[in-house]
């Protein structure tokens, strides 16, 4: 492997603007790798949590309770109509002041929710607001008559939801969900604003220290996101085709 490092060191010498520093310097390489890993963890956590919020929110929207419905509606309006970056700052700097702290060593006061925690919460609520609407549209696309058939067979409301409405709604929702989740993965870069050490954060520290590494590192950030989103899109379309029903909707 030494010859690869040597190759990039040579390029940096020959072309001063193309310093692929993380290809030959272990410290910078470590930053990039840990940044990518943090971006992946952040994305997976937000994907999962935002989908849970979406399903629960859509279920709550179908409730008979007016108060519950207006809470969900208010939540959607707030998170959909304000910038995610502002939300992130609000969660971390405003709400973060009121969360309890603990002291691992008797000296430091550490908040129980870290900046990573706030990033996950904030971004999940942001994407979750869209997911609620996406799932609601999917649920509304399930014909009333299909629900009636379940009801006439004696299904309870939750049984009819679980076994009939949601499986059908999910299939209708997938293309829109796909778009929103792609956006979510890209929006994780905004966690940079509260110093979550994800890929963009690590990259900026590198090119601040080594301006000669600016172009290569930006290029790398683009490539990593193209690959990550590509993997997401591919697995979503695999999921979509695995759920395709013979003779339905085509």
């Amino acid at each position, binding site marked *: 492997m030494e010859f690869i490092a040597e190759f990039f060191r040579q390029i940096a010498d020959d072309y001063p603007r193309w310093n692929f520093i993380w290809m030959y310097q272990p410290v910078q390489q470590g930053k990039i790798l840990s940044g990518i890993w943090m971006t992946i963890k952040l994305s997976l956590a937000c994907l999962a949590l935002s989908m849970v919020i979406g399903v629960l929110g859509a279920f709550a929207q179908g409730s008979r309770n007016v108060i519950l419905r207006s809470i969900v509606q208010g939540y959607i309006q707030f998170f959909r109509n304000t910038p995610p970056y502002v939300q992130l700052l609000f969660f971390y700097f405003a709400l973060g002041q009121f969360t309890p702290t603990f002291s691992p060593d008797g000296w430091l006061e550490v908040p129980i929710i870290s900046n990573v925690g706030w990033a996950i919460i904030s971004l999940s609520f942001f994407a979750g607001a869209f997911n609620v609407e996406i799932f609601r549209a999917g649920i509304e696309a399930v014909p009333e008559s299909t629900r009636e058939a379940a009801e*006439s067979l004696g299904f309870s409301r939750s049984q009819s939801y679980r076994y009939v409405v949601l499986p059908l709604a999910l299939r209708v929702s997938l293309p829109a969900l796909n778009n929103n989740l792609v956006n979510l993965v890209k929006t994780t870069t905004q966690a940079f604003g509260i110093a979550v050490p994800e890929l963009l954060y690590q990259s900026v520290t590198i090119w601040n220290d080594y301006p000669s590494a600016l172009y290569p590192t930006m290029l790398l950030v683009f490539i990593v996101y193209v690959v990550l989103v590509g993997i997401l899109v591919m697995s979503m379309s695999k999921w979509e085709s695995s759920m395709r*029903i013979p*003779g339905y909707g085509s």
Partner: protein
Amino acid sequence: MAEWTEKDPIVSIRDVHKYFGDLQVLKGVSLDVMKGEVVCIIGPSGSGKSTLIRCVNALNDIQGGVIKVRGIDLTDPKLDKLALRKRVGMVFQQYNLFPHKTAMENIMMAPMLVLKEQEEDVRQRARELMKKVRLEGKEDAYPGELSGGQQQRVAIARSLAMSPDVMLFDEVTAALDPETVKEVLVTIKDLAQEGMTCILVTHEMGFAREIADHIYFTDNGVIVEHGPPATFFHEAKDPRTKEFLSQIL
């Protein structure tokens, strides 16, 4: 409340009134169905016949009158809808199968989820039902892979899997191609001959004449005329009935 016995009507509809908002669709309808009887309800579109049978399994609520199924009072605020729906099966105009489940799964879902029966018992019964509706070999087909008539027969089997006492058929052949209507009617006729209590809303006059024990003609939310097929079709007295029959016969 007196226990229901076989001598009482299995479905008893008494002076039922039904409103959708300000619109009154049922204006005091009464009819009785005895166990094993086949009753056809006919009438022009919008006369309230579909609404009437939807009230019999509480898909629609009523604003006046009483409906009882095997002694279960549907107007009771503490009505156990599950107990009612075990007794009453319903087949819809648009089949309403679960499109993401195979024919067998469509049939097996309710007995397993609602009646909590063992999967193996249910599977065996579902196979027998598929045979009964003449769809052997289509067990693993999805609704989208079946013709309208086949889907409707799966829907009938799905209702029968709950072993109901009464079957409701809401214009079940209205959405079908003419050539597949017959296969569905044959299935219903088999059922009727086995002694299943059936209430049908239908436009198939020939079929109604053939299998019905009693025919009710509704118009504008009331029962205008009723009787056994022989007298109903030949000796209709009310002008509205006469006009309706002359248009379709």
